[in-house]
């Protein structure tokens, strides 16, 4: 990375802490998630392959921060590290992860279980795999409430209805008695969000939460996430969709090859993207309002850009895990 880029990046990062005029950032508070210089390696068959190479990221209460990049860029690895779900063989070799004030970098599974659901929870891309297909919604939501809040019976049922009401599910009493396959995609994702929201976690990680949804349903779910953050939750939104980021998030980090290439407020980054990769992602994003705008796949656009700028960039460093 060149010095100029490092300077641009640190400028962009400092911009996160000082909200731009007009941006709806919460007043500065201790971050609910702070990842510092995180390095993760995969040890497999005597070989060590780096997956994350120095990731810095923080999410404050009430802030919606996006982690943006292509498949294989390391997005999911960051979310896995932040929820203690790194796969077998993946090792944190450097850096630290601080979740709600606690350094969780070296935590073992039993301790993580006390945090998941309560301090950090996740909403995944495919609600059908996140839900158990053979159990009714009421049983699955009830699990979360029993496990983390000790609620049972009528008390739990009442809370389920209240939660579904909050995620704007019509007729929650009926929905509770249904199985996941009886719900539409948007309804399922609302149920998953209600479950993630059940214990008022400090941080909700949403991994491509609307990728599988129709545009109109997507907008409703985005509104919902926006409202949750409005109540003081920190949200880390993982996505490849720069359209969603522009409309929903306060700030973003662009990840590629296991590195954060650019961070800043949505306002600043969209107005003047500093890194060629960010510009390439924008060029690959389809726009119905610009008929002349032809889509350019990222690598091609990136190479064009680099040739123009006479810069070197190691494209082979893409992480494929």
């Amino acid at each position, binding site marked *: 990375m060149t010095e100029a880029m490092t300077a641009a990046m640190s400028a962009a990062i400092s911009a996160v802490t000082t909200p731009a005029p*007009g941006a*709806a950032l919460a007043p500065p508070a201790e971050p609910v998630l702070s990842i510092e210089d995180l390095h993760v390696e995969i040890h497999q068959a005597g070989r060590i392959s780096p997956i994350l190479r120095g990731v810095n990221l923080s999410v404050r209460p009430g802030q919606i921060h996006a982690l943006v990049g*292509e*498949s*294989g860029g390391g997005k999911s690895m960051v979310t896995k590290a932040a929820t203690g779900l790194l796969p077998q063989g993946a090792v944190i070799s450097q850096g630290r992860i601080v979740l709600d004030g606690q350094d969780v970098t070296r935590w073992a599974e039993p301790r993580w279980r006390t945090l998941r659901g309560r301090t950090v929870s996740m909403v995944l891309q495919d609600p059908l795999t996140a839900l158990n297909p053979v159990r009714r919604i009421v049983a699955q939501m009830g699990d979360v409430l029993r496990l983390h809040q000790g609620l049972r019976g009528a008390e739990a049922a009442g809370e389920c209805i209240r939660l579904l009401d909050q995620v*704007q*599910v*019509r007729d929650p009493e009926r929905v509770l008695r249904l199985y996941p396959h009886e719900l*539409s*995609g*948007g*309804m399922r994702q*609302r149920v998953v969000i209600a479950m993630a929201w059940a214990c008022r976690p400090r941080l909700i990680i949403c991994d491509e939460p609307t*990728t*599988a949804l*129709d*545009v*109109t*349903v*997507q*907008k*409703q779910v*985005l*509104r919902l996430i*926006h409202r949750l953050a409005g109540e003081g939750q920190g949200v880390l939104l993982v996505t*490849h*969709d*720069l*359209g*969603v*980021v*522009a*409309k*929903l998030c306060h700030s973003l980090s662009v990840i590629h090859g296991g590195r954060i290439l650019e961070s800043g407020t*949505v*306002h600043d980054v*969209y107005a003047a993207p500093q890194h060629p990769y960010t510009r*390439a*992602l*924008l060029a*690959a*994003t*389809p*726009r*119905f*309002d610009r*008929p002349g*705008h*032809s*889509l*350019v*796949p*990222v*690598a091609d656009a990136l190479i064009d850009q680099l040739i123009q700028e006479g810069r070197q960039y190691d494209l082979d460093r893409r992480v*494929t895990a």
Partner: protein
Amino acid sequence: MNSPLLQARGLRLALPDLAHKPLFGAAPMKRILHDVGFALHTGGTLGVIGESGSGKSTLARALTWLLPPQAGDVLFEGRPVRAFTPAELVAYRTRVQLVFQDPMSALNPRRRVRAIVTQPLRALGRLAGADDGVQQSAALLRRVGLAPNLADRYPHELSGGQRQRVGIARALALQPAALIADEVTSGLDVSAQARIVALLDELRRDTGLALVFISHDLSLVRSLCDEVLILRHGEVVEQGESARIFAQPQQAYTRELLDAIPLPEPDPGWLERGLPASA
């Protein structure tokens, strides 16, 4: 103008609604497609837009006569498919090929890419038993921008975008006149999407391949298709030249769909505009 390559006229299709089937007796019929029609010329591109449950995938199946519609006609080169003999129907399906949404389930996980892309040739006896199709598969893979050495891989060893290209390569094996692509870009990231769209556009320009591009992504349809058809609950809401519909949508539903697309520009008021809140 010559007669269209592929034409649909007044397609109506209903399927048994199993969710409302009484314990005894037949399930009530549910209307899936109602009076859908279009005309597609060689080298033309038709985008079919609709939300889940609008009948998009059923339309793909009706066009290939996998689900024969109860009323209306599909015409190929001016001849009604309904009147085709079984042999003519097989020939028709080699000319109009389907590519599916999820390549992971559309490709046999236990076969190598080479066997997958040459399977249509083998099934129709265009590849001798002893021929392992090295040349044909290499040519097909090159056609979709994949390295020929990927032929030795299994589907799970490919990325999502590569798998979708394999699906397209297989559809191209029989040199079809038209391709029906059913949500082929959903599940891919923006860059992989852009590659697939570029590939389809290139095939259309180079070989005159006609394309029915079924998608819920209006922006992709805009960048690829000359004509669009917007489906809702199996009915055509609006159809016509894509430039006109995207610039001046006539129907409220079309405007609602367009307004719901998040463009990559910050806009603080966007989230709260339009659309009712609950589902």
